């Protein structure tokens, strides 16, 4: 279970507060207007922000003292998820060994992970020779190998076309279900949430609200969400 406990993140003129829990295995969409602090919330959970107050816990353990790489977390960023000088297989292999010391067994695992995201045989290519959708799949394959209980996605498919985007969302949902991972996904597309999220965390005016069931929140949107959604 993820616990965000009285969290406060402060920049010069901006404060984000959050206080909620997410049950293990849930798929949560973090929605809200741009600049509301969605990515900031994700960064704090991933360990890139030092909160002014409060804690982030996983299964009761305080993540505060842990460096980003030591947290039970896999992150997929908006961009720059792959190192352009490493091959696809090496980029995935980093999920097993940050120093890329891979045993033959590890290399088999890398191949399998690539297979699971539909990239069989592309391990030798460098990211420059992949399409946007393929690059997104490589980062998912790596997250799969890291096998961390918490999967954080920061608007990772923003640059993809609608059809590809839906395809990737389904793949993410599928992987999360198969590995039992808890998913937190930042998005500004209500459609993304409707498609795969069990719950929605609404971030508005410097506050992250506790998760609400997706169907419920869209059926009966609070004023902030209604304003964000517009007339649709």
């Amino acid at each position, binding site marked *: 279970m993820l616990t965000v406990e009285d969290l406060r993140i402060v920049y010069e003129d901006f404060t984000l507060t959050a206080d909620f829990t997410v049950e293990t295995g849930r798929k949560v969409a973090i929605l809200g207007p741009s600049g509301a602090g969605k990515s900031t919330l994700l960064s704090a959970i991933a*360990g890139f922000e030092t909160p002014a107050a409060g804690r982030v816990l996983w299964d009761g353990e305080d993540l505060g003292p842990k460096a*980003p*790489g030591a947290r039970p977390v896999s992150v997929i960023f908006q961009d*720059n998820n792959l*190192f352009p000088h490493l091959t696809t297989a090496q980029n995935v292999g980093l999920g097993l060994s*940050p*120093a890329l010391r891979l045993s033959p067994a590890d290399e088999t695992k890398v191949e399998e992970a690539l297979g699971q995201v539909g990239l069989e045989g592309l391990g030798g290519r460098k990211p*420059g020779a992949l399409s946007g959708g393929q690059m997104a799949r490589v980062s998912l394959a790596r997250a799969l190998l890291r096998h961390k209980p918490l999967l954080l996605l920061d608007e990772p498919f923003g640059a993809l076309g609608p059809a590809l985007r839906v395809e990737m969302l389904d793949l993410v949902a599928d992987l999360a279900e198969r590995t039992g991972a808890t998913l937190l996904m930042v998005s500004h597309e209500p459609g993304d949430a409707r498609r795969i999220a069990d719950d929605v965390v609404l971030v508005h005016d410097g506050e992250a609200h506790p998760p609400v069931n997706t169907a419920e929140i869209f059926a009966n949107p609070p004023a902030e969400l209604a304003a964000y959604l517009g007339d649709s």
Partner: protein
Amino acid sequence: MAHGPQPVMSMSGRVVAAGAVALAVVLALTLGTIVAVFVRAEGVGGFDPADWAALRFTVTQATLSAALSVALAIPVARAIARRRFVGRGALVMLLGAPFILPVIVAVFGLISVFGRSGWVSQSLMAFGYEPISIYGFHGVIIAHVFFNLPLATRLVLQGWLAIPGERFRLAAALGFTSRDIARHLERPMLREVLPGAFLVIFLLCLTSFAVALALGGGPRATTIELAIYEAFRLDFDLGKAALLACVQFGLGAAVAIVALRVALPSGFGGGLDRAVQRWDQRGPLRTALDASWIALAALFLILPILAIAFDGIGALATLPSQVWTSAARSLGVAAVSVIVTLLLALPIAAWSVTSGSKLVEGLGTLTIVASPLIIGMGLFIVINPFLDPFALALPVTALVNAIMSLPFALRALVPALSQIETQYGRLADSLGMSGTARLRRLWLPRLARPLGFSAGLAGALSLGDLGVIALFASPDTPTLPLQIFRLLTSYRMDDAAGAALVLLALSLAVFWLLDRGGRVNVDG
């Protein structure tokens, strides 16, 4: 998102430790050596008239050299900026060449062109004029302009090309005349660019040693650096040398402090190979004027280099064997210097970037102000009680050369590393890539280009250096530049020409190979 925080850099202990060690070496060599010189100097005497003359000459020649370089750079850069012609790319590349051209080679070329029996004097005499002299005041200025006009031109050219093309289109649409364009677009740009360019060149000429050694000398053309050398090498007057070293350091530091406020331009920027499209500069007269500026500048740069090739190529076959052994010695010194440069630059750059502190980098570039002769002298004093400094001439030369290349390496590495960390730092952090894994799998592969460039620069600068080796030189282990200097001063012009050609070829080859090495097989 809008509230982007400063990226949290993973500041590993090893980065700090390595950076601190590298910085300590730099500080010991720059400031520590000055202290050593002072401690050893028994009683610092007063300034005698010769010292005043050296100070006056140093400041005068630096001012004049910088002013001339910058003034001439304006029409040349303007012409290059607004004209398209065959060989434009090659000319822009040539403007970068003097930086890695060994001073002694350039001096030889300048003597061939401007010397008493050189091409210019011969032509003047054919028309009944007096030949010009390349030695003394004139020579030092000509050589400094030769080295720095290209740098100034690159800096001013950068300024011109930084004016957005839309502005010139807008100016054309509004019917601006050339005078209007100069007033509204060009003069404001020049006001920003020129002070920095002037200061950089002033600083470079302030610490000029090899040019003064080869072309200057005597009461009327001795720089402080040359006076330090003479006090140490000829008179072994450490008190005098220490006093002069202090004056030199103070002068450099004062200029550097002014320079910090002006924001020194780097001159390494790429993208100089496009031309600004202009609509006000049509017509044969203006074209001819621009063409003649370009031709004059190109000739001024190319002729001395051509002269070395012409004079040297015939002598290659009969070069004395000492030239080849000293060439091998120079290559060894350069190789060590390249390695030391990178071993110092990388940790300092890493520390500077991960701590986000400008101070680290600032201290690393302290060496711009420091003089290689002072460092060499300090090392001599420190080494002398234990070992024979003359036996260590080559390692000391390699070390001092590395220190002198450090600011350029840092200027290439720090922005590149900082960009790598901005782009990939979080990804590496999230994957737990720290320490060696980060170095080997992220930094080194993505720094290949700036590392190759820094290595090439350090190699070429070390190969061509005629500074500290002149202090320590023993008769039997000269480097190639020192060998050329000795051949020149003993009037063995043919051998000197051949050796200069060898050094020129080696310097260009070393720079090209190392710089090239950083460019192959780099993705994205």
